[in-house]
């Protein structure tokens, strides 16, 4: 094969891959762009003029910042809970023997593959039948969020844990570390990056969720719910400001983590 063709073959896939990545980022750039938009009317969704007002007056739109706070609170709570429960499950599934492993795998997988509308409906059905239809709100949303984050946490931590040489834990026990000490001094530090990634993912999923939240929110309003409502009423450009901020903060956290581990490795 000629050198030209080989170069093309080698780099074609990479080029396509990069193009797909650019495609994935395009809406993000649009969001950033639109955060500077000065919309001509409430219903226009095109770039009409440049302004910094949106950034100066972030909490302008009625109830937006309240919904943001709600989303952040639920996100934090759900992340901590799901990460805790999911990490425990991951350890059980990778390092311990128990009957019903197949069932466990299945039941961890199913929530990920279930359409949100179905999951939301079934939770709503539960709450209605339990007689709590009147108090849908913060805690029902919390329950729902922990539910769908749980599976993703299990999968992420499990992946990291499975890559961990079990001999390391055996070596620890051989060197007089009991089960707790083995976990705390060997397993946990080595699995931590996975747990962190799981937490990050969990927060994103929770913050972002609309369909399930919408069905189970009662009177509570989360940020995605606010955006949905705004899409009917008229979209305030500050939504894009929030979107941009979320993106930058998350990227910041990831890059900081990356740099931190690079320095530690040196």
């Amino acid at each position, binding site marked *: 094969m000629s050198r030209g063709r080989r170069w093309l073959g080698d780099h074609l896939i990479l080029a396509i891959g990069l193009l797909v990545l650019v495609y994935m980022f395009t*809406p993000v750039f649009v969001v950033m762009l639109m955060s500077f938009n000065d919309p001509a009317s409430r219903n226009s969704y*095109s*770039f009409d003029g440049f302004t910094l007002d949106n950034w100066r007056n972030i909490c302008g739109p009625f109830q937006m910042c309240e919904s943001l706070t709600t989303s952040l609170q639920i996100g934090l709570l759900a992340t901590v809970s799901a990460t805790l429960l999911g990490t425990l499950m991951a350890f059980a599934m990778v390092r311990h023997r128990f009957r019903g492993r197949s069932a466990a795998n299945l039941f961890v997988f199913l929530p990920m593959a*279930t359409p949100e509308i179905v999951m939301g*409906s079934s939770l709503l059905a539960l709450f209605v039948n339990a007689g709590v239809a009147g108090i849908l709100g913060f805690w029902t949303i919390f329950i729902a969020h922990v539910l769908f984050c749980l599976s993703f946490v299990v999968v992420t931590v499990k*992946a990291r844990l499975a890559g961990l040489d079990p001999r390391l834990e055996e070596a620890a026990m051989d060197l007089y570390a009991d089960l707790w000490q083995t976990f705390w001094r060997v397993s946990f530090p080595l699995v931590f990056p996975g747990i962190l990634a799981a937490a990050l993912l969990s927060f994103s999923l929770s913050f972002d969720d*609309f369909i399930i939240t919408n069905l189970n929110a009662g009177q509570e309003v989360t940020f*995605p719910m606010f955006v949905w409502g705004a899409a009917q009423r008229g979209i305030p450009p500050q939504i894009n400001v929030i979107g941009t901020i*979320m993106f930058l903060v998350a990227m910041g956290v990831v890059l900081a983590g990356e740099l931190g581990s690079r320095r530690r490795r040196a």
Partner: protein
Amino acid sequence: MSAAGNLPVGLVDAPTARSQGGRRGLAGYLLLLPGALWLLLFFVVPTVTLVATSLYDPSGSLQTGYAMTGHWQNYVDSIRDYLPQIVRSLLYALTATVVCIILGYPLAYAIAFKAGRWKNLMLVAVIAPFFTSFLVRTLSWQYLLGDNEVLVSVLRALHVLGPDGHLLATPFAVVTGLSYNFLPFMVLPLYASLEKVDPRLIEAGADLYAAPFTAFRKITLPLSMPGLVAGTLLTFIPAAGDYINSELLGNPQTRMIGNEIQDLFGAGDYPTAAALSVSLMAAIVLLVFFYVRRAGTEELV
């Protein structure tokens, strides 16, 4: 050891390392308990109550309460009434899945084999758009596909679209939105599978006279199957139940089954909504069941 490299590529995972299986005893059950309890209470039980709700008398409401009459005709009625939406949902989801495979496979392949030291960065790049709120991103498609914007203008100039043609409020927009949203769910499991393929296998193929594409077809593709199937399940199924893309980017003729279920719940017609949900869930369970039959459950999580 960075967080970036740990984002959920483990959707397709290796079976546990030690053949002995791990420690015996209560510890395993205890660790499993809280999470399992949560799943049981808020996933399994609700599914049961959903099925129960689907059998209620459809003439009830939140105010008057629901009578459990075992009214299985709910299923027949709902499927008959909403068949167009069901079929449309499956069609859109299928199209979106295919698009995801076409776009996602090269990307996953590039990250697994061609990325070198940029691998972690590229993985982060796959997840990063996630961090911008999902609805906000979908709204930005309204801009990208808008009548007055670049894309439509170009297509009109090229006569791909008629002078009055638009991209928004069409099935095309809905499918575009769907495939965009679920792309990471296709890329990551695929990447996980491809990552495990030993590049020396491909070299061996070349050594045995296989042309590059043949090597791909006969070696890489079959080995990436678990990832492909997992990605397909994680894309097709949720896409079939989505309604956001249809609502924001479509028109009344593109309504999907998700839209209908949502509206039915909003209107208080719980039995019908539940019946539709259960039907959708049953279709999924069937698909997953066939997959598990062939491949077992170890590769799922």
